[in-house]
């Protein structure tokens, strides 16, 4: 089992991260890889070093408590990013698809509302979206159902 959190400026390598997760052992049956990328206009990503890693690691620990994961990788970039560049990668590996899908979706929803990053576009700082708060909150409501 390998759980990795990285906060860094350089681009990530999707193929390498997928290969790592899929090679975690003969028990891996499903890998889900989510990537978020810059849409429509370049962005500058500000972040809070230290707290960023800490918050992401805390969300990952919660995911591990809820789903039988065999591995997970979370990478969040900061700094200037061009259109089409990857911002965030969340990868999960499990025996079955439900755990891999649900945990990756959970991690993304919580990163959106609790990882201390801020996007700045040409028009100024991007406003937080109420829909992101709702997306994260639904995992609180469904906590019992999902077990």
């Amino acid at each position: 089992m390998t759980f990795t959190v990285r906060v860094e400026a350089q681009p990530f390598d999707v193929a390498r991260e997928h290969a790592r997760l899929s090679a975690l052992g003969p028990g891996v049956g499903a890998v889900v890889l989510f990537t978020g990328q810059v849409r429509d206009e370049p962005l500058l990503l500000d972040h809070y070093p230290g707290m960023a890693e800490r918050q992401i690691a805390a969300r990952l620990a919660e995911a591990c408590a809820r789903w039988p994961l065999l591995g997970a990788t979370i990478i969040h970039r900061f700094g200037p990013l061009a259109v089409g560049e990857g911002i965030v990668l969340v990868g999960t590996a499990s025996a079955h698809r439900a755990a891999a899908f649900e945990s990756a979706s959970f991690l993304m929803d919580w990163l959106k509302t609790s990882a201390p990053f801020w996007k700045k576009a040409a028009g100024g700082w991007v406003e937080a979206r109420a829909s992101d708060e709702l997306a994260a909150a639904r995992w609180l409501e469904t906590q019992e159902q999902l077990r």
Partner: protein
Amino acid sequence: MAVRLLYFAWVRERIGVADEEVPLEGPLPLAALVERLRARTPGHAHALGEPARLRAAINQEFADWNAEVHPGDEVALFPPVTGG
């Protein structure tokens, strides 16, 4: 005794510094600390004027305005996060 303040995104831009130390002799609710900070410069007043638009962390954990700040703490003030 002091607390270390960190500012991010437009909070940092309005205040004009990324971090600073302010004196603190004993525990103080976060709301009261922000009140004090607002009085420092017009930039602070502009950045910290609407607490509803701000979020805070104490020692890298999210904190609400009632939380107590202690001397030696690291306090961060920033807008709602927009990563991911």
